[in-house]
């Protein structure tokens, strides 16, 4: 699990948790504006949101968001965002998903080949499923990611072969 904080501003705000009643929607907007908008691609956002979830408790944690709102509201906002982005990705066509995978792989600091190899071997995207998601939908998501990875890897090999031939 990743403990998210947004630097000293987040730490300072932690001391002044607002009294007023805040809604999950407000926290969600804040999350979308401050964190999610800085991440390129829905797949990367999905992985990020899934990483804020504790493996043992299933609760989402984000220190910066909890400081501005409350831990419970932050948890609900993260869960909402996770579910929404998951549905968005699950609704993508295979072609769109391939573009998402390309974007994710290109934006990562690790080498493309390494990411593709690890993702195909360990299937870490399975952890990105929200809790209690429809079983057939979960299978469709996993299946489409598997296909998208195979397609991206195929293109990668073609590029490598083209480069070595020239």
């Amino acid at each position, binding site marked *: 699990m990743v403990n998210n904080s947004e630097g000293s501003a987040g730490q300072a705000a932690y001391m002044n948790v607002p009294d007023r009643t805040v809604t999950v929607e407000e926290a969600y907007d804040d999350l979308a504006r401050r964190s999610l908008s800085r991440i390129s691609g829905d797949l990367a956002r999905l992985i990020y949101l899934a990483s804020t979830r504790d493996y043992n408790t299933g609760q989402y944690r984000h220190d910066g968001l909890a400081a501005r709102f409350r831990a419970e509201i932050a948890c609900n906002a993260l869960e909402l965002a996770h579910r929404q982005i998951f549905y968005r990705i699950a*609704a993508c066509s295979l072609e769109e998903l391939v573009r998402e995978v390309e974007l994710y792989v290109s934006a990562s600091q690790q080498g493309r080949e390494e990411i593709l190899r690890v993702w195909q071997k360990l299937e870490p995207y399975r952890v990105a499923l929200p*809790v209690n998601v429809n*079983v*057939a939908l*979960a299978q*469709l998501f996993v*299946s489409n990611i*598997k296909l998208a990875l195979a397609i991206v890897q*195929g293109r990668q090999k073609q590029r490598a072969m083209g480069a070595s031939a020239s």
Partner: protein
Amino acid sequence: MMEFASVIAGAVLLLLLTAALKGWLASRQLGPWPAASEEDTTEPCPEEFFTRVFTRADWEFVRGLKAGGVERLFERERKKVALAWVRQTAALIRKVISEHARAARQSENLEFSTEINIFAQFLMLMAVCGILSVAVQIAGPLWLGGLAHFAQTLSQRLTKLQESFQAGVPAQTGEAGSA
């Protein structure tokens, strides 16, 4: 001539019962998904997602890539997803019918025609699930969009029928209690 027609009718009935049995058996083998509980497992899949499994849009894209390995992987994966959907639909219907049986036991004025209608729809749906299950394994899901849509519609209709029945049961028992 009459005997021949009876034999044909008997054979068709037997086939439908076999398909229904296959659907019922398929519903008992839900996928290895730890994320969902039993109740959530039997929530219907949103229509916009299940139609994607049975339509050709993604297949056209994959075919355009001209990569045999990916094509074979696509066929394998789509079969898996389609079978998961069929199993889930059958499981949902089994759940609906067992809820109905529970509610019917509490009801004081069952209507024979409604019960026959519900049971007939249940049998038909199980038969369709059985046929879908076999057909997906043989031919893949891309040709079966119409049948899958029919199963989805029938499943929604049966669920609504049961919901309206169940909504009537407490009222009936309440009336009986206050009388």
